[in-house]
């Protein structure tokens, strides 16, 4: 903390002293986040510490089980307000039919980042797109003058800016219907997420997100995951249009019953 502010002060002083190098600093290329990225870990099952456990459908045998994992939440505690803590438990109990992932709904932010699917960053000097393989979800990050969310959406409204070498994305207008994981961790439409993408070498991005939602949590909290470059020569996003895998779950009860 002390070190970084000292460094900043020195940097500012030297910029003031040598205008030519200040210009060079301003024109310095931004970190290049282009690529296909994927998180490796179990956060999509549960963002908190968890042992392995049986899946919601025993018919699937061991295939449906959740792998054990260490959480991605700083301090491992999600500071739910009492009513929200009860709702989280209920979500977990009913997850087979109520998890938005089971219904193939858009993953929301931050879950899109750490789902077990690749996503691609397309970074131009003006705009940045994040394109997710899961459910063809995508978002454009506005790097210009910040805009107000026109309406609440699953993926929210993203305003980005560079803080040094970190891409900071402020996400508002989230409808709060997406969950954080299959364990039923959730938020409300008051959710506000501030994400930080920091390149760590050529093939890794450190991702952090600060989460606040006064309707659901007593304070803000933080998650962090590493994202790894998909380095296969032929790496590309394929399609996971999962609607057709969710239709029987969602609408099967309304199908005409045949007497066969």
């Amino acid at each position, binding site marked *: 903390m002390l070190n970084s502010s000292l460094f900043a002060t020195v940097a500012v002083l030297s910029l003031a002293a040598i205008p030519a190098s200040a210009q060079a600093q301003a024109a310095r290329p931004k970190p290049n986040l*282009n690529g296909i990225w994927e998180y490796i870990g179990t956060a999509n099952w549960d963002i908190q510490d968890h042992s392995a456990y049986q899946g919601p459908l025993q018919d699937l045998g061991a295939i449906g089980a959740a792998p054990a994992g260490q959480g991605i939440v700083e301090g491992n505690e999600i500071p739910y307000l009492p009513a929200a803590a009860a709702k989280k438990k209920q979500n977990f109990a009913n997850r087979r039919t109520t998890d938005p992932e089971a219904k193939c709904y858009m993953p929301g932010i931050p879950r899109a980042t750490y789902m077990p699917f690749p996503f691609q960053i*397309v970074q131009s000097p003006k*705009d940045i*797109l994040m394109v997710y393989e899961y459910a063809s979800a995508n978002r454009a990050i506005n790097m210009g003058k910040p805009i107000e969310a026109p309406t609440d959406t699953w993926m929210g409204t993203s305003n980005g800016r560079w803080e040094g070498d970190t891409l900071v994305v402020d996400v508002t207008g989230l409808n709060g219907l997406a969950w954080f994981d299959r364990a039923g961790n959730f938020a409300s439409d008051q959710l506000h997420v501030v994400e930080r993408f920091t390149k760590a070498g050529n093939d890794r991005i450190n991702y952090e997100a600060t989460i606040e939602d006064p309707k659901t949590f007593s304070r803000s909290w933080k998650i962090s995951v590493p994202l790894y470059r998909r380095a296969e020569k032929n790496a590309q996003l394929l399609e996971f249009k999962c*609607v057709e895998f969710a239709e029987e779950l969602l609408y099967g009860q309304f199908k005409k019953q045949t007497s066969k």
Partner: protein
Amino acid sequence: MSRRFLTSMSALAVAIGLASGQVKSVKTYTPPKTPWGDPDIQGIWPGNMGTPMQRPANLKDRALYTDEEFAQRQEQARKQALTDTQEFASENAKVSIGPPSYWTERGKPTRQTSLIVDPPDGRLPPLTPEEQKFRKEARGGRGVTGEWRGEADSYEDMNLYYRCISRGLLGSVIPVVYNNGNQIVQSPGYVAFRNEMIHETRVIPLDGRPHVGSSIQMYMGDSRGHWEGNTLVVETTNFTDKTSIGSNGAGYPGDPGHHSAALRLTERFTRVDATTLNYQVTIDDPKTWTKPWTILIPLAQNSNYQMIEYACHEGNYAMGDILSGARAQEAAKSK
């Protein structure tokens, strides 16, 4: 090979004429370049509704409206725009279950008499005998799912658009009544083409890599791009045979409709002036149509257009309502 070359040349000649509004001497527009030297085609490029896929037969080989006809169409569009802004239907007006008129984004009329610019009569080439048979016999003689006549035994009776799965590659661009936004973002080695409805993005590699293996099939296909001068050329293969070509990719009656998995699309993106991106596509599917055909959609840049998330499936209350309504009707009848 030579046939395809000739086809694209004649379509290009028409395209140039259309873009300038009338056939006259052609000035070549040089687009700006990205910092890494590719032609810059980035921006928000919504489509304009109102040009039919096929040309009315009485217009024959006439690809463009006359000045007088074009003025009439502009006047019609002006009146329609006034009506569209009404928040409430006027008294005694016919009201349907469609969206309110102020949702609509019809855009500006163009001089084009049809989206199809090749064959020169603006009409679809004939279907192959194989495809005629397929369409007749589809779903036990009920036709492909786009020709939906109220069957509601299962969600599978609905087309892919009603099911919110995909509108397919062309259905995602062909302008309809709303949510016609398209966005292009470029990075070194890639062009991303993003379509507002139903939230599709193709990230197209430009590095000359081969297509994915033939057992991988995708609704939006597998795209590879390269630059030919200032034109981005994108070849797409590996399609499923489930999507349709036409409005919303739904396979509605009168649309080009169902295609086979042998479909190969060649898209050409060319900036013909500062605010017009010509989007020309050659549809080559020898199992479905007896020869390739080409459409042209001029896309107009609109940096004020805001693309908004189209959460189709997430809000698809209609599907459950249609199916449960059908079951309720059956129960009432059997009483």
